[in-house]
């Protein structure tokens, strides 16, 4: 039984949420309580599978799963002459890390959502789409096949668009969803053109196979530009960021926290293409600088747009853009010195680790912040900062969670944001001091912005219209508490996390030949 689970964990990771999603409309007819229990059960099982798979990957190295083969470990059929012909899931340390992020955030968000979205209609469909979103994220981060990546990307964007429009809200939410969906459809089609170019050149769809045949011709450069542009748009980096504030602010808060993870799955795709598909064949300095510039622009533009916002979720969305910049900056610096082993050893790996550590930290604290915004909305019915005030008297726990999230995003010491930002500062300073200074200034501006938000939400006298406001319900607090606990834990003990999870992920990402060898065998 254990062996069966271990072997088939990658398939189960997709199957469980899918079966859960297909059955939810039926089960939803029985009673809301049964439906909640069912969704929670499926999510728990998915989380356990993800953790099991991740532990397996971190202990025993990259796991592959071949769909449709008699033996799921045999990537290359004996008679095929050394080419993989089926869809292969390749779960290396980086994928496993992303799966853990998706699973834990999904679990916490679901706990929160069961209580927070109770008053709405159409909840069977809501949870169906939620599970499909989880399946999309899991598929995107674990697949080793480009076309499969595209299919899961589409599952993710369609379910996200449906969920962003969920509240309808006099058409506003639909408008935000429409904007997001038009952009992501065009983005996905552009990615498909890139995949088609690879297929036309190398007659392969498997990432490892294309990587082993990669010659970096002019066509490959076109494909690289198309894919980087589309994925940078999907992860909300600056030149194409304008969908982010709309979508993040109009979605239900629980979904916004998941959208953060969804955009990080696109970020993962970007890193996977650059590092695994191309690696040293591309001009690492140029592409690295492109990604660094995208990152710096995102950081600066995000934070400057955030400061004047009146809507608390829009403000947080602009901060999300700014934090995405840190990840791009860290990993971009790692890419810029890729192939140069001494520089890589001295600061390249640390920069990549910082960027990747920031992905997991960002998912946790930004999810936490969006959930607190949702809790406030749940009780007082508005996101407008000018209408809030004095809530610290009645919503103490929410206030504490907000403080934890805000200090973490600003990079204040005992929280996890500090740990990853410190790694980024140190390594980026060694690469180019100006970039490090910009990163620090952005961090200070973030702190200033959140101090202002904190003041206008929680401080001041109790307002008369919020006399009867109570603390958020317990399940919502538990959901926020899970994320807050992780934020504090990672902040207090960053070293074991970096050594155990982040460093293997960064090395797996940079190590193209290891990835190819895991699929194609040999080297």
């Amino acid at each position, binding site marked *: 039984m254990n062996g069966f689970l271990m072997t088939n964990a990658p*398939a189960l990771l997709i199957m469980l949420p*899918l079966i859960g999603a*297909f*059955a939810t409309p039926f089960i939803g007819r029985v009673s809301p309580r049964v439906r909640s229990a069912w969704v929670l059960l499926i999510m728990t099982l998915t989380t356990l599978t993800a953790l099991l798979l991740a532990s397996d990957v971190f202990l025993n190295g990259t796991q592959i799963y071949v769909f449709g083969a008699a033996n*799921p470990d045999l990537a290359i059929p004996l008679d095929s002459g050394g080419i993989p012909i089926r869809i292969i899931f390749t779960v290396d340390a980086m994928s496993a890390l992303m799966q853990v992020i998706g699973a834990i955030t999904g679990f916490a968000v679901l706990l929160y959502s069961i209580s927070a979205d109770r008053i709405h209609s159409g909840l069977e469909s809501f949870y169906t789409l939620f599970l499909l979103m989880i399946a999309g994220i899991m598929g995107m981060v674990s697949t080793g096949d480009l076309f499969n990546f595209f299919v899961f990307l589409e599952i993710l964007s369609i379910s996200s668009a449906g969920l962003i429009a969920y509240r309808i809200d006099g058409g506003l939410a639909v408008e935000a969803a429409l904007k997001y969906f038009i952009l992501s459809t065009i983005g996905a089609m552009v990615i498909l053109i890139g995949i088609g170019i690879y297929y036309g050149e190398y007659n392969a769809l498997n990432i490892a196979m294309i990587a082993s045949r990669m010659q970096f011709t002019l066509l490959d450069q076109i494909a690289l530009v198309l894919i980087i542009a589309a994925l940078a748009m999907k992860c909300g980096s600056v030149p194409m960021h304008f969908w982010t504030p709309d979508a993040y602010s109009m979605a239900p808060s629980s979904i916004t926290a998941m959208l953060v993870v969804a955009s990080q799955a696109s970020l993962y795709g970007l890193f996977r293409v650059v590092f695994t598909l191309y690696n040293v064949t591309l001009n690492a300095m140029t592409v690295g600088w492109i990604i660094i510039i995208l990152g710096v622009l995102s950081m600066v533009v995000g934070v400057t747009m955030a400061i004047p916002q009146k809507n608390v979720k829009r403000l947080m969305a602009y901060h999300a853009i700014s934090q995405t910049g840190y990840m791009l900056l860290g990993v971009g610096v790692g890419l810029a010195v890729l192939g140069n082993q001494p520089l890589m050893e001295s600061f390249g790996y640390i920069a990549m680790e910082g960027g990747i550590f920031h992905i997991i930290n960002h998912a946790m604290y930004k999810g936490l912040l969006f959930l607190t915004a949702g809790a406030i909305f749940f009780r007082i019915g508005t996101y407008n900062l000018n209408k809030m005030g004095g809530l610290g008297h009645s919503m103490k726990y929410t206030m504490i969670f907000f403080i934890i999230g805000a200090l973490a995003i600003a990079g204040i010491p005992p929280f996890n944001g500090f740990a990853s930002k410190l790694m980024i500062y140190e390594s980026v300073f060694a690469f180019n001091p100006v970039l490090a200074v910009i990163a620090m200034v952005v961090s200070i501006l973030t702190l200033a912005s959140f101090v202002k938000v904190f003041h206008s939400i929680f401080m001041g006298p109790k307002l008369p219209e919020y006399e009867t406001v109570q603390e958020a319900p317990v399940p919502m607090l538990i959901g926020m508490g899970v994320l807050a606990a992780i934020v504090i834990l990672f902040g207090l003990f960053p070293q074991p996390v970096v050594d155990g999870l982040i460093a293997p992920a960064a090395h797996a990402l940079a190590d193209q030949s290891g990835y190819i060898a895991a699929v194609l065998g040999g080297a």
Partner: protein
Amino acid sequence: MRMSKLVRTGADLLYPFALIFGLYIILHGHLTPGGGFQGGAVVATGAAIVIVAWAYEDVAGMIRKVTMKAQESAGLLLFIGTAALALGLGYAFFTNVLANSGSLFGLSVPFGPNPGELNTAGVIPIMNIAVGIEVWGGLTVILLYLLSGLNKKEEGS
């Protein structure tokens, strides 16, 4: 809006033919061009003709959203169940366990052109049927939803 009697009768007459043609495409997916998606789309087109010819209120009684949704979910569950069949037998997800097995759809085929035999291809015909059921239900229910959404506006304004 109900169309003229000529159109309605014509649509009713066309519907069984579309149904049979679609089912033929679904069932022969592993032998001739076509398959579950294409056949399902043909059947759904038959339903679309009926929907266009009759008014929404008439169609809502004939083709029910709930049944179509259930049909779609059932098709998907059959599809994923067929794929998971291999897991139970100790192979990887999506393995074609019935091909060349001698049982249902289990005749083997040698290489080269041949006239075609329906009882071949293992799980592929089953998956074709499952996908056909799903697409049939899915496309029809999308049409019904869009139509009902447009109808509500007319009532309101």
